[in-house]
């Protein structure tokens, strides 16, 4: 700790730097856990100001604020959503008057105004709109995306960008997610450490209620709502596209569900529950978002400055799990890279299947199986095409396979390649027949 002093920086010397007095204590002084070769001071400060960083997703407000006050100066933000009134209980950069405007735009302007000297470039659209050239400009990517599909897309893109001969092509991905009082923050060094696809089975989709339960033996209020949503709407209003945000549509479903519930003596259908089931609403609160977003930005700051060890360094912890409903509990561990990961591994992943399943059954099961989660799969073996979602001509040609049993189409242990329009990569699976 000998080098402490107040050095003069070329970068914003004097009064300007006074503003960063607290941050500078950390940037200008080594600590007991910093690398012995790490040199604090001007270079660290400059590196931080130059690092271009991308933030995205539902945790965007927190992420932008945190990055701006961590000393990052060139921040980009992607968000396709517009502001809804139900965002206001946690997304603190938005006011009632902003409802309907693009989140990225409003958030960027707000933080630029509040934190002087930071430049925030918004893009109002999907992360999938952008290509490798775009992502190549960033030092790292911090995201708190709501959808697992968007996460898998950015993960696969960043893994695919890695060029062994170009160290700049490796972009750390810092990902945060929350659900009620629970959340997680994780750091991925594409190709080097466990990726989002390696960890896919930790975020299994909720099991869907079987159709026959909805159609013939409902028992829960949710079953009646799903019936109204999936069956009644299709039967009675198939010409109208269901809009989850249209109160008239939700009200129609609510009343249908309520009537069905009464027929079966089921109680508990409410408007709020109808909305929750139809829109698949996940509870979200300011405190958990603050915890998870700050954890992500803390890791981003450490990676950008080397002011302390960070999560995700190969062979060390890369994942922090958080639970806050029963006291406070965190579990920080190293998730291992999977050699059969369809994105960052090179081995096909084993998938146990029932040989008596038809191809159609198998395709439907792929959407729900935690290790696959593919909704529109196109499947082929090395020798033949089993099923194509598109173009229509190929779809038609392969459609007869849908009713064939798996053991008529593939042999036990055969490898299949599955692609899905949501992802730019091909998944390799080895189909093992269950006995």
């Amino acid at each position, binding site marked *: 700790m000998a080098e402490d002093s107040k050095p003069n920086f070329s970068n914003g010397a004097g009064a300007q730097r006074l503003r960063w007095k607290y941050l500078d204590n950390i940037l200008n002084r080594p600590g007991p856990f910093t690398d012995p070769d790490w040199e604090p001071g001007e270079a660290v400060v400059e590196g931080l100001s130059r690092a271009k960083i991308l933030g995205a997703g539902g945790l965007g407000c927190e992420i932008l604020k945190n990055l701006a006050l961590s000393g990052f100066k060139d921040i980009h933000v992607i968000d396709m959503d517009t502001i809804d009134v139900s965002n206001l209980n946690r997304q603190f950069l938005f006011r009632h008057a902003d409802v309907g405007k693009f989140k990225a735009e409003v958030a960027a302007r707000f933080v630029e105004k509040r934190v002087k000297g930071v430049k925030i470039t918004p893009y109002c659209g999907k992360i999938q709109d952008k290509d490798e050239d775009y992502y190549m400009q960033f030092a790292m990517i911090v995201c708190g995306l709501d959808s697992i599909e968007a996460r898998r897309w950015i993960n696969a893109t960043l893994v695919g960008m890695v060029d062994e001969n170009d160290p700049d092509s490796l972009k750390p991905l810092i990902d945060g997610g929350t659900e009620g009082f629970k959340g997680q923050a994780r750091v991925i060094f594409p190709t080097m450490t466990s990726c989002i696809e390696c960890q896919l089975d930790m975020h299994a989709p909720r099991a869907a209620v079987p159709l026959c339960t909805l159609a013939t033996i409902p028992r829960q209020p949710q079953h009646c709502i799903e019936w109204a949503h999936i069956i009644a709407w299709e039967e009675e209003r198939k010409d109208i596209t269901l809009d989850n945000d249209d109160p008239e549509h939700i009200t129609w479903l609510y009343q249908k569900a309520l009537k069905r519930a009464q027929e079966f003596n089921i109680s508990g259908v409410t408007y709020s529950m109808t909305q929750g089931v139809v829109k698949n609403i996940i509870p979200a609160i*300011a405190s958990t978002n603050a915890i998870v977003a700050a954890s992500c930005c803390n890791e981003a700051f450490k990676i950008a400055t080397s002011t*302390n060890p960070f999560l995700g360094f190969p062979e060390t912890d890369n994942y922090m799990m958080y639970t806050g409903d029963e006291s406070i509990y965190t579990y920080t561990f190293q998730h291992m890279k999977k050699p059969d990961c369809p994105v960052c591994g090179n081995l096909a992943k084993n998938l146990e299947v029932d040989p008596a399943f038809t191809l159609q059954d198998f395709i439907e099961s792929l959407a729900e199986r935690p290790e696959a989660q593919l909704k529109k799969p196109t499947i082929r073996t090395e020798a033949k095409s089993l099923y194509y979602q598109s173009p229509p001509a190929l779809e038609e040609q392969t459609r007869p396979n849908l009713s064939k049993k798996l053991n008529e189409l593939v042999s036990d242990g055969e490898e299949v390649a599955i692609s899905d329009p949501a992802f730019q990569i091909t998944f390799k699976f080895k189909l093992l027949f269950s006995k």
Partner: protein
Amino acid sequence: MTATTPPPLQGPTSKEKKYDRQLRLWAASGQAALEESHILLINSGPGVVGVETLKNLVLPGIGQFTILDSAIVTEADLGVNFFLEEEHLGGFRAEHTCNLLKELNPDVQGHYITEPVESFLSKPDILKPYTLILVSAPISPELLSRLETNAVASAIPTFYIHCIGFYSHFSVHLPSAFPIVDTHPDPVTTADLRLLTPWPALSSFAEEKTTELEEMSHHDHGHVPYAVLLLYYLEEWKKTHNGQVPQNYREKIAFRDMVTIGARTNNPEGAEENYDEAVAAVLKSLNPAEASSAVREVFQAEECKSLTPESASFWIIAHAMSIFYKNHSSLPLPGSVPDMKAKSADYIQLQNVYKTKARQDFAEVLDTVRSLEKRLGRIVAIDEKEVEAFCKNAAHIKLVRGRPFHVTLPGEGVRWGDRAKFAAQSLTNPDSLILLYIAFLATDAFTATHPADDLGGAVKAPGEVDPETDAEKVTGIALKIIDDLISEAGMFIEEPEYSEVRSKAGEYVQEIVRAGGAELHNIAALTGGLVAQEVIKAVTKQYIPVDNTCIFDGVTSKSSVLRF
């Protein structure tokens, strides 16, 4: 089909729309408690962690907040505090952060006080208006101690928060008895079906639904609810086991095999979902309905055993509950039935069997409550709904006993009391962050003896100017605290563990001193999230709060909750 649907009679209000995502967690009752609360923040130092906490409380809609802070906005504030702007330089930090926080939610009232803590605290009853108090370090130990005494006297929950560099800590001092009924246990793991001790109505329902089970059509056989199946096979089991239900793990496994064999495989599906569910439920559901140790602790509490006319309603109900438990060897039935494969009518019927019994149990407890009230001469009757909520969650109620902060008064060491042994044992536990906690206590002791100026209350953080010298001093204090703890616990730590403990404590101190009293925005934001979450639990009396110390290490991204 052309006519639009008329709006429902009770569509969501604009408040329900705004708070939808949180109402799904703590419901209208929790929201009402938040809206009635008034949170006081006593701020100092860089003061970010307290403001970030308030942000996370203003957004979900607490009633009011007050910031007490006499600091003037400086350039350094603008680099770390999001709720200040350039034009506020030279103004009162309390005033401007208050105004910017208020912008977040028009339903919340914000106030500020720029008076020094010392004179503020010297007024009588000054803490009375507040529901809960947040104190952000650094603060002089004398003031912290006085504040804590006043708050405890009025049963106001108080939080003491540290946030320095990559580290943070907070301790919660809850009232001496802080009972929680609405703990929100996980519904999946807590289904209470009482299959080992069915009451007559349940037994006869099960018997009726399993008459000629073997002769049933595939459809009927595949739709017998799993709870009923288990009751049926338990009866079968008892026939060959002297009328006893499965007694231990091995017997439960044997029983499970018996259920597995009962499933039909000669049907078109080749298996039966209801049997799968039954098999999966054996180990979870075949447990005696004994009260947990947490519940027994409530029954044994002095407040529960000796009621007075002034007893809180919680204790009256708890007392009634303990009588029920004594008479029935089980708690009142909660009455909810998890979803299971079944025909709609059968499932609804089964639900009603459980609901009816739950209502009977509740009525019995309510009777006891009423006679207790009469005996005690209480005038205002306890709300029936409160008794009902208690019955529904009886197995998961929780009592937290508030515990005091460690205040490092000059000349007095840290005393660990009944937690000395636990604390001393934690010193060598690699997963415990107790040494970081001790580093914070040592920092407090340092600031107590290093006033920054002559204005009472203001203190100097270690490492502000001379990190090397300060680190040495603070390490010395930390090592003394460790040695005192080991001797208070009457323990001895052998080498090389002892040296490891000392050097680890030294590293934590160095990292704290490196920051020179600085808050890092990320750590302040993260800690502000943790504290806000705990404030919400304390105010709504829902979920289970931290008891009583939480430590966060932003270097390794790990946390510890310790009871001191």
